[in-house]
């Protein structure tokens, strides 16, 4: 019962019946279906982000031995909602000298790029919008859009700091994207498939999780992923001490909120991908049917999000040259090494089909 899939199907069949009555053609219904799913997904994402914001503040407070937001609700639970509403009605100051269209569309691109990943993410058993056959590649492709968003934000706001910030963050994201994609290769070599659903189904129990066979791959992936989200050790661009707020200096109001939202979504996505590819996604350690699949999925991802938050208050911020050097001089060679090792490993142990 806990599998949400059944509930969703029931709801869906009701809706279909309703629309059919209205005489809307079949294909239109399908589209409406997808639209509904998209809206629902947006809602889920929004809720998760709100929770994450709150959780992050609580965790960071806990780590700094303080209480964090307590006043708004029980333990400040509705603090983020208050923030959201605040941002909604804050004045959006757009400077005169900016290149308005670029400035306006940058947050949209960034958020949409982050949001579109969840089309092919398997939240649970059957809980996948559409299991693309080129899933992994799709995810990597979509994440490159964030770079475009960054650059647009940087250039659009016509501000030296934002321009420089845009450049640096773009360079950083770009540098870490290569090891990220190479790390995933190991998994693909073993799973021989790009679709996330099948990868998860292949990891049906604890022992078959790919992390054991791809420890180096996972390590590289995880480090690259944190860099992708501009999280702590690699959060140089929008570090307060450095370039004001990096490429978001000129943004305020809802556009700023959108960037903020996109950042947390990226954080969540990173952990989702880590979980799906290396830790069996919605698979419980004991088999496919052991408890609600999405519960497992959310647990694992929340754990990895916690790890990200954990990184934030443990590691010192890297210098720019260390940051970049690390990507090219350490991660990339390791990634290649990983590929070779997995290649040999597959050849030696599993034998080739």
């Amino acid at each position, binding site marked *: 019962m806990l599998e949400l899939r059944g509930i969703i199907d029931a709801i869906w069949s009701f809706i279909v019946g309703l629309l059919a009555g209205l005489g809307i*053609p079949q*294909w*239109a219904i399908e589209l409406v279906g997808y639209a509904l799913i998209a809206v629902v997904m947006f809602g889920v994402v929004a809720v998760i982000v709100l929770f994450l914001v709150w959780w992050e503040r609580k965790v960071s407070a806990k780590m700094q031995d303080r209480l964090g937001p307590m006043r708004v609700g029980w333990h400040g639970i509705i603090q983020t909602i208050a923030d959201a509403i605040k941002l909604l009605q804050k004045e959006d100051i757009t400077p005169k000298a900016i*290149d308005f*269209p*670029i400035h306006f*569309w940058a947050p949209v691109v960034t958020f949409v790029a982050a949001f579109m990943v969840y089309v092919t993410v398997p939240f649970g058993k059957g809980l996948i919008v559409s299991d*693309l*056959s*080129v899933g992994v*590649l*799709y995810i*990597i*492709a*979509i994440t*490159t*859009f964030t*770079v*475009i968003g960054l*650059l*647009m934000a*940087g*250039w*659009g706001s*016509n501000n030296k700091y934002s*321009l420089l910030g*845009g*450049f640096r963050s*773009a360079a950083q994201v*770009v540098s870490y*994207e290569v090891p990220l994609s190479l790390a995933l290769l190991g998994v693909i070599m073993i799973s021989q498939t*790009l679709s996330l659903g099948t990868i998860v189904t292949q990891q049906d129990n604890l022992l078959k999780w790919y992390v054991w066979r791809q420890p180096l791959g996972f390590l590289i992936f995880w480090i690259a992923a944190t860099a992708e989200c501009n999280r702590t050790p690699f959060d140089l661009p929008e570090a307060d001490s450095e370039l004001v707020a990096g490429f978001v200096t000129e943004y305020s109001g809802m556009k700023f909120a959108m960037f903020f939202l996109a950042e947390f979504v990226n954080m969540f996505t990173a952990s989702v991908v880590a979980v799906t590819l290396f830790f069996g996604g919605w698979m419980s350690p004991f088999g496919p049917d052991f408890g609600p699949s999405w519960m497992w999925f959310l647990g694992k991802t929340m754990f990895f999000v916690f790890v990200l938050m954990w990184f934030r208050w443990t590691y010192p911020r890297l210098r720019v040259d260390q940051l970049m050097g690390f990507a090219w001089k350490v991660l990339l060679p390791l990634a290649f090494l990983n590929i070779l090792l997995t290649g040999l490993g597959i050849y030696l142990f599993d034998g080739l089909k």
Partner: protein
Amino acid sequence: MTEISLTNLTFYILSFCIIAGGIFTVSSRNLFHSAVFLVFTLFSVAGMFVMLNAYLLAAIQVLIYVGAVAMLMIFGVMLTTRLADVRLRHVNEQSWPALAICGFFLAFLVYGLWDTPFTVSGVPMPADTAHALGTLLMTKYVLPFEVVSLLLLAALVGAVVIAKKD
């Protein structure tokens, strides 16, 4: 309205996006705008690949063109264009003749393409092309595969030598 009309609709929408994007890329005054329109056009081309069931190629298109090449273009624009320059006249003086000639070219192209009888075979596309591409690449097109690595090396070294400021 059948399934086909849906695909027709999407095709026309996508082609409209591609053409409009192309025209804007070429004709927009602000260089950065044209870069962004380029990204939009490439994305729509990727969509077109999806229409043609070439999913892997679509992903590759998005990954390389949008992620790398377009990003490179934007980098180039940002590095070389002073903000003030962006407003300069962006079209040189031979735009009108060029327009005319391109018009003629298009007319001939269309005329040429329209009446050449391509042999269209009815065999449906295989669903998953990724694996097929992979095997094909590794077996039949090995040489180009290795040559591409050399090409990339050459491009890398060349670009580094040219761009490195010493």
